[in-house]
């Protein structure tokens, strides 16, 4: 338990309601009418992602690549940085698209994204991570689960840092909260702080 007190939320990102916030500060916001497709394209251009593969990805992967890119920008992370993600809709949107495509000729490019943990692979490729990763499907944001799992990875030495959080996408509605957890920072890695940071855009 003492070891957990040495862990901190080094950085955090929130993406919801056409707005991107880093450490509670809004860094990008769009008109209310912008749907996810336009939002993800515009954010890619403005944030200069320069990662052409992004355009081939499904929406959940785009959301994961976009949020992790911003979160990890200018952060020093090792290849053993673990990923502990969660959401409630799994890969719903692309599953639905795949189901619809089965009425005609199935698209291989759609099929390859029909699992939520594909996004973890895409993030690992982009950031050259060779680490533990897990994707939980939960009814709602579960700070305790993220805390327990991340602490175990960090305290057992299996990871030097952890990116954990919530990456939800359903019917083009998105809700993201990711944080980088390490031994450096000012915000203690606690259930209360996770809930507070996630809750900002929900009020």
């Amino acid at each position, binding site marked *: 338990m003492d070891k957990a007190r040495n862990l901190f939320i080094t950085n955090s990102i929130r993406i919801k309601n056409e707005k991107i916030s880093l450490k509670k500060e809004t860094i990008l916001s769009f008109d209310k009418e912008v749907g996810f497709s336009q939002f993800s*394209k515009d954010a890619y251009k403005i944030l200069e992602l320069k990662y*052409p593969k992004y*355009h*081939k990805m499904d929406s959940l992967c785009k959301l994961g690549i976009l949020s992790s890119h911003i979160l990890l920008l200018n952060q020093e992370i090792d290849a053993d940085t673990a990923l502990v993600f969660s959401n409630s809709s799994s890969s719903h949107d692309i599953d639905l698209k795949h189901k619809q495509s089965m009425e*005609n*000729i*199935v*698209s*291989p*490019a759609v099929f*390859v994204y029909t699992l939520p943990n594909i996004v973890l692979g895409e993030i690992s490729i982009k950031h050259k991570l060779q680490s533990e990763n897990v994707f939980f499907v939960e009814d709602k944001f579960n700070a305790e689960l993220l805390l327990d799992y991340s602490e175990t990875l960090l305290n057992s030495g299996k990871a030097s840092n952890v990116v954990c959080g919530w990456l939800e996408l359903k019917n083009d509605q998105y809700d993201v909260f990711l944080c980088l957890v390490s031994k450096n920072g000012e915000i203690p890695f606690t259930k209360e702080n996770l809930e507070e940071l996630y809750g900002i855009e929900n009020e």
Partner: protein
Amino acid sequence: MELKMSDLRTELKQSIIEQLNLEELSIEDIDNNDSLFGDGLGLDSIDALELIVLLEKDYGIKLTDPNQGKEIFISINKMAEYIESHRTK
């Protein structure tokens, strides 16, 4: 005939850009002799499967042997030649 082939090449480029989500490319960026894989457009194995789907959907060509793709998906020119001689629609 020459004009027809030229139209087919332009149509192919447009379809490939759309189907494979090559958003940062335009028709003008793709040369008829550019390699589609490797150092050219840099397509991957999933893209190859999408090209097989494209042949069937748009031109009624069914590739039964996946190895055929290696000879057809070399460049826009090679694809256009194959389509012109095998298309059923």
